[in-house]
């Protein structure tokens, strides 16, 4: 479904990604794990068209997409929940969700998806007329994910959904990620520092170090890989 071929990306003169190859098939949950500053978020921003691709190719459903503008990518079905959640603070919960469906005009389908996200996160229904900025961290993460779902994405990019949240909430968020994947066969690309949790729900995983993919394997093998246990799982 999504394929990164030999992708390099840079912020100005500082090259962050070096010839990265990643392949994601339809319906999979793929995780990208790595330390701070390894290039995880940059990878997502390159897919979303925010960070320009220096060389290499990004293919989505067989078509080259790395020259498209970010709004065109959303229209194609690639949605990102960025690191730090980026809730519109002075828009209500409902308006935040409306913004997620910005490019859609099918009011029936929007209504359906609204019911769906409220069934995933009932707390958001209770808070729908409250400003997004007044929500707690966990609620904001729920809202950010729901907002992305309102675009009915084919590929959902999640950047550190567990960051700064309590363990109980993290568990809930990961369960929901799994559920979203099952309910709508939504392909998920999950970037995480919380490697243990991520590998438990993922099908396959990639490890990135200093902008280079060093290991790629199925999640089970990665969980038992001794190097990874030492570096990322704290065992």
């Amino acid at each position, binding site marked *: 479904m999504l394929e990164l071929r030999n992708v390099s990306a840079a912020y100005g003169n500082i090259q962050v990604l070096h010839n990265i190859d990643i392949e994601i098939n339809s319906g999979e949950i793929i995780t990208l794990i790595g330390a701070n500053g390894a290039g995880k978020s940059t990878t997502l921003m390159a897919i*979303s068209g925010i960070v320009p691709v220096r060389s290499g190719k990004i293919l989505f459903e067989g078509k080259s997409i790395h020259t498209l503008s970010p709004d065109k990518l959303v229209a194609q079905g690639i949605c990102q929940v960025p690191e730090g959640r*980026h809730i*519109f*603070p002075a*828009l209500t919960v409902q*308006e935040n969700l*409306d*913004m997620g469906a*910005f490019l859609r005009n099918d009011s029936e389908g929007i209504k359906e998806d609204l019911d769906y996200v409220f069934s995933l996160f009932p707390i958001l229904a209770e808070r729908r007329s409250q400003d997004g900025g007044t929500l707690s961290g966990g609620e904001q993460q729920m809202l950010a994910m729901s907002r992305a779902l309102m675009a009915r994405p084919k590929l959902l990019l999640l950047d550190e959904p567990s960051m700064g949240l309590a363990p109980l909430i993290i568990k809930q968020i990961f369960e929901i990620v799994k559920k979203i994947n099952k309910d709508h066969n939504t392909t998920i690309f999950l970037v995480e520092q919380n490697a243990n949790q991520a590998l438990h729900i993922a099908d396959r995983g990639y490890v990135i170090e200093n902008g280079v993919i060093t290991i790629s394997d199925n999640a089970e093998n990665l969980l038992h890989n001794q190097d990874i246990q030492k570096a990322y799982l704290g065992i």
Partner: protein
Amino acid sequence: MDYFIELFFGGLTRGSIYALIALGYTMVYGIIGLINFAHGEIYMIGAFTSFIVATVLSIYGFPLLAIVVIAGLAAAVWSSAYGYTIEKLAYRPLRKAPRLAPLISAIGMSIFLQNYVLLAQTSDFLPFPALIPDFEFMEPVAHIVGSSDLAILVLTTLVMIGLTFLIKFTKIGKAMRATAQDKTMAVLVGINVDRVISATFVIGSALAAIGGMLIASHIGQINFYIGFIAGIKAFTAAVLGGIGSIPGAVLGSLVLGLTESFATGYISSDYEDVFAFSLLVLILIFKPSGLLGKAETKKV
């Protein structure tokens, strides 16, 4: 008491005109963080456009109401075209440049437009036709509140209700607020930010043009320089209310208009600007973010 009421309504009229211009400053600042110094010139171009259209139409004997509506629309459309073009030519290429660069570009645009109108039109004051007739029902109070004051108050109130509706409930309005709050995220949900910024300039310019027509008809004369002082005053009003805040721009404008009106009426018209700008200095000292503005907090 009559005198007080007269000054009060005079101040409201003045303030609501300022508000029409200040909204453009505040909306543009809210969305791209730029003080659009060419905005006063947009207002001046609106006044000139409505002057030309109104003059032509009155030669052909159109009824007054038709003249007001057509001249107002023409001014709004023409000024919007200017606002749209200015953004595209002078600000968009500098979107990623340091903040000072577009600011200087804006000042350059302002000077350019003043001189362009000076050369293309005239340096003289032109008598502007009174577009608002004396209403009969206003006769008993005409010595306190003029018909033109009333018309301006009603029209600006309607325009502001329309604007509030647009920003609160329409898709483009929500997209504008979203873009102002978090540009990266706005891009990530698929909003075409360039288009939203253009829309902001178009709306702000249309409001300024309507303000230009109304005040020109109220005062009765225009020239190429009127945009400068009106622009500075409206900018003051926007800062007073808290730049970036839409209700703030309206409140700041009314406060400024009333202050000027009372200062002129009770003290001396020589001190009109002194009071206006002293108010600004006081606000900046005691409440730097303005009456309704939020203090900028930076998360580390």
